[in-house]
């Protein structure tokens, strides 16, 4: 139901405030009692929900406090940086579960009241933004501006909405109109956007260059940037931009050189990115810096260099330190272990896993880690090399596990996977039988009866030692790319900036899934470009198997793009070709799939 219909059903106008809308709703409900007329009542209720969203606030409400904390982000938000496979120390996995509120109810009265009002307001604004998201996915810029202006007129208090509208206008270079909006915003947003506006009105050379190079081909961009940086070597903005361009162009050595001359402020950030994307090019000097600022990245670099012993020692140190760090993110340690495994230190990695498990258990952190299902599953694909290092008494360990749902998640995906990869399933069984007979019989049961959800032998147990379960899962996922449950709620992402390489100033605020590859950049619809997006993410994450699966559809996409002939498509085709090339460089095996059992 749209706003007009809703208002008409309730007989209210745009001038009626929330209280008046409510009265109208209640009066209408009497004509459509839920007992007598459930369908009619539902329509009236829907009309009320829609009309209420767009009603003016009643006059006695004061402007919202911009300092109130918004509700936590939905769990689908991707962690920044996680898509690259690097893990920033101290970062939470990026999803804060929407916790149940009763436990928060211990606060004193008055503050609670304020927080509640703010929460309700944010929820309302979120609903408006979500609705707009859905509506404007395929809309062009002018329509977007028009709709957003309408929404903004109805309720200028929502900072996110104001920001979005502002950026849309800025992208269209309608800076005066953007400026005109400022007085109607709340003070916090106004201040922040005023600064933005000042920057836009007086663009730095880097920004000006950015706008100019928006549609330029990659080589030209790099060349121009190099020239610009040569003229102004102190510009951090240019340096960082060029750095990313070079990394994307796989010119790690050149990128590394940029890091060396970078300012003290910029260097650690660039060094960390370099360690993640091209660890071979990290200089000794940067490495020293990384030991201080990002020890996990440092360990990864050491491993890459072959300094296995040193890397392992550093990893041990970091693991031992975990209990003392109150905001420790054990997932970072796990990520490092995985990197070590990939760099050839699989046996040591196996030992480190046991050490990490012990440390967490002793510190009582195991429970915490268990709750981060995201962490658990995050690195599954990379645990493959560890499989061969499962200790002899794996069966005993598995029996010991309390599981806490770990095995529930194994059995169902197993069934699904097995039905798709019958031959591999038998191979897996053979392997499992030699290493972990319990797991093997569990797998067997599941293959026979997909409805089986638990194995009788696993009832009870001592401590959750799910590491090995995940090693098993890793094998399975590597062989067949199993998903869990197989469901995901999905909203179309908000339209992002016109191209992926424009200065952040022109980017809309990132919300869900910071995708770097967008439909408009690709030149086709979002769905068709999705495979390329996934390939890109997989390549960036070093996930050969994941990338390989996406390769065939990406090749088809490439053919399509080449056939299109438009300049946008041609650029996109270049990009795709580059991605496929990096995939070949990274994962030189000629056949898909993991190691044979």
């Amino acid at each position, binding site marked *: 139901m749209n706003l007009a219909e809703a208002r008409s059903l309730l007989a209210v106008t745009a001038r009626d405030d929330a209280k008046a809308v409510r*009265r109208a709703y*209640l*009066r209408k*409900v*009497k004509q459509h*009692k*839920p*007992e007598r007329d*459930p369908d009619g*009542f*539902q329509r009236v*209720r829907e009309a009320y929900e829609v009309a209420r969203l767009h009603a003016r606030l009643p006059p006695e409400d004061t402007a919202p406090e911009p300092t109130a904390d918004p509700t936590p982000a939905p*769990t*689908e938000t*991707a*962690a920044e940086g*996680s*898509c690259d*496979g690097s893990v920033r120390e101290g970062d939470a996995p*990026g*999803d804060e*579960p*929407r*916790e*149940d*509120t*009763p436990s928060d*109810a211990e606060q004193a*009265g008055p503050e*609670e*009241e304020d927080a*509640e*009002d703010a929460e*309700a307001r944010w929820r309302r604004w979120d609903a408006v933004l979500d609705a707009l998201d859905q509506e404007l996915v395929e809309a062009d810029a002018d329509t977007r501006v028009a709709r957003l202006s309408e929404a903004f007129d109805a309720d200028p208090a929502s900072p996110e909405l104001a920001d979005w509208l502002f950026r849309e206008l800025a992208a269209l270079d309608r800076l005066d109109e953007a400026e005109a909006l400022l007085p109607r915003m709340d003070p916090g947003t106004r201040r922040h956007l005023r600064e933005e506006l000042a920057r836009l009105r007086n663009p730095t050379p880097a920004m000006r260059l950015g706008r100019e190079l928006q549609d330029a081909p990659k080589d030209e961009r790099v060349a121009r940037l190099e020239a610009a940086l040569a003229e102004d070597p102190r510009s951090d903005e240019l340096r960082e931009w060029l750095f990313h361009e070079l990394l994307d162009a796989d010119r790690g050595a050149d990128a590394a050189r940029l890091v060396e001359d970078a300012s003290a402020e910029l260097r650690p950030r660039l060094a960390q990115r370099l360690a993640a994307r091209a660890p071979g090019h990290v200089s000794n000097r940067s490495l020293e810096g990384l030991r201080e600022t990002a020890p996990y990245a440092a360990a990864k670099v050491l491993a890459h260099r072959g300094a296995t012993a040193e890397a392992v020692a550093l990893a041990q140190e970091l693991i031992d330190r975990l209990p003392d760090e109150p905001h420790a993110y054990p997932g970072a340690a796990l990520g490092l272990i995985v990197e070590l495994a990939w760099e050839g230190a699989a046996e040591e990695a196996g030992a480190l896993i046991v050490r990490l498990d012990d440390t967490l258990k002793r510190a009582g952190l195991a429970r915490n880690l268990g709750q981060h*299902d*995201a962490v658990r*599953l*995050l*690195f599954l*694909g990379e645990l493959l090399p560890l499989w061969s290092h499962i200790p002899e008494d794996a069966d005993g360990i598995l029996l010991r596990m309390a599981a806490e*749902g770990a095995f529930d*998640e194994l059995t*169902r995906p197993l069934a*699904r996977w097995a039905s*798709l990869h019958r031959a591999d399933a038998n191979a897996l069984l053979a392997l499992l039988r030699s290493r972990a007979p319990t797991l093997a019989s569990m797998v067997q049961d599941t293959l026979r009866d997909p409805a089986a959800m638990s194995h009788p032998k696993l009832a009870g147990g001592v401590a959750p030692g799910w590491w090995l379960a995940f090693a098993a899962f890793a094998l399975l996922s590597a062989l067949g*790319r199993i*998903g*869990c*449950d*197989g*469901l*995901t*709620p*999905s909203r179309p992402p908000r339209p992002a900036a016109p191209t992926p390489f424009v200065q952040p100033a022109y980017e809309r605020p990132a919300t869900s899934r910071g995708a770097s590859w967008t439909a408009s950049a690709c030149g086709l619809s979002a*769905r068709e470009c*999705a*495979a390329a997006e996934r390939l890109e*993410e997989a390549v960036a*994450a070093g996930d050969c198997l*994941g990338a390989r699966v996406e390769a065939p559809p990406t090749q088809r996409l490439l053919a399509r793009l080449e056939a299109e002939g438009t300049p946008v498509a041609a650029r996109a085709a270049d990009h795709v070709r580059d991605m496929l090339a990096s995939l070949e460089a990274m994962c030189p095996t000629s056949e898909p799939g993991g190691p044979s059992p």
Partner: protein
Amino acid sequence: MTRVKTIVGIDLGTTNSLVGVLQAGQPVLLPNALGERLTPSAVAVDDDGSLLVGAAAKARAATHPESAALAFKRDMGTDATLRLGDREMSPVDLSALVLRALVKDAEEALGHPIDEAVITVPAYFGDAQRQATRDAGAIAGLTVERIVNEPTAAALAYGLHHLERELTAVVIDLGGGTFDVTVLEIMEGVIEIRASAGDARLGGEDFTDAILTLLADRARESHGLDADAPKIRARLREAAERAKRQLSEVDRAELLLPSLAGRDVAFDLTRADVERAWAPLLARLRDPIRRALRDARLAPTDVDEVLMVGGASRTPCVVALAVELFGKRPHTELHPDEAVAQGAAIQAGLKAGDEAVDDLVVTDVAPFTMGISSGTKMGTRVVSGLFSPILERGTVIPASRVERFFTLEDGQTQLQVEVFQGEHSLCKDNQKLGEMLVTQLPHRRAGEAWVDVRFTYDLNGILEVEATVMDTGRVSHLVLERRPGKLSATQIERAREAMTRIKFHPRDSLPNRTALARADALYVETSGYERELLGQALGRLRAALETQDAALIDPAREALNALVAQLRSR
């Protein structure tokens, strides 16, 4: 002669049950065979194997605990069974027996048959429990089309007289076994339930249990008694109940239990002792109240009226808690034991289309969030076990909401839809309601095939799940997996038939049986001269019953009842 269509409203409580109708726009509660409006929710087996329901059964529970069943409402929706005599009975069977007794008495009082009823349940009762309640009604031979939430019923009982006002009220319903908090608003003559919270396992029985534990410990320590022996425990429980009631009025209670395992035992309890034992229970009352206020986005000071319903809400420290939280004394207009039944009667009238309540409108909300299990992708990794709400708590009902879910895997042709109820973000912390497998999805890349899952939640609080596969329009309906205690139609029919064949005590002899049981219970408690008196009066009634002569039986029964009343008041 056309039959009058009467729908009755039944409050099927943990401790007591009531039945009422709407007459001339007012709820009227109907008396049972003993002339009382409250019928204990108790079932017992008599010496000759016949079944007793109500006060007689409750009295028998004190002396023969192993052949009596109490508080079985708490086990509704589970697989629990109880052995009574040579019968194995489920909570549904037991509830059906109580319902049957209530309805028979109501039919007597009204003078015509009843075949439909509205039954109340705690707002927090889940799907399984609601279905079980309906099943109990069906076995008792009743059509139960409407289940209504207890606090909503109480709100109706209250709101009926205040429709012209505009106010916000909180109903605190602390019954025998469950605790419900409901926030409601009356505006423009509409009663709007704004939020609902509660604890399905917290009630007056828990308060009694706390005292029982206290007494049991003392019995063990000071008197060397085996407090776990059923007969002793039953006596202690009965004493605990007495204590609970007495300490609501006075500060100190002396409990005498003569001939308890061969000796006379006395306990001395103060109100302070008891309130200490109740401290954790009182703490558990706060959270649902806070949550309901928060959901309704109200501060305690915004509340105009506090209504306390349910027997246990009479407890002074519970009232004190309400006063502390809201800064005002609870409203006393509502009868704590009868309000819910009154509301049920009003709802029955609404359903019957009674003109007297034509103007009355009430809207209710879903008391908890419902959703399904889902996964999501972070980069190329998959995270699962996440709870995806489809219908949030506080949604006005009836409501229908749909969400779209995409596949995570290429070529995925099946989707497991697992339905959960709860507020936590991970499914494993919520309560599973059921599942269904949606098959034959078209072969597509991950994220390109989808299923629309629709939740429809009706006024009775029954959830229907529908999954539609993309583009095909194919719909799968969820048949909620067999929950423990849920019966199929044939099972219900069989049970209903079995009930008609159960040997009950003839109704007209119920007053006699009850008198005997009550006297018997007291007999056990007393000693000395009082006991002798009682013994004689009991003997006289038993002899009179042998003659089957009403002229002899009735006076003997009256005399016995009078004596019992007199002895108890000492």
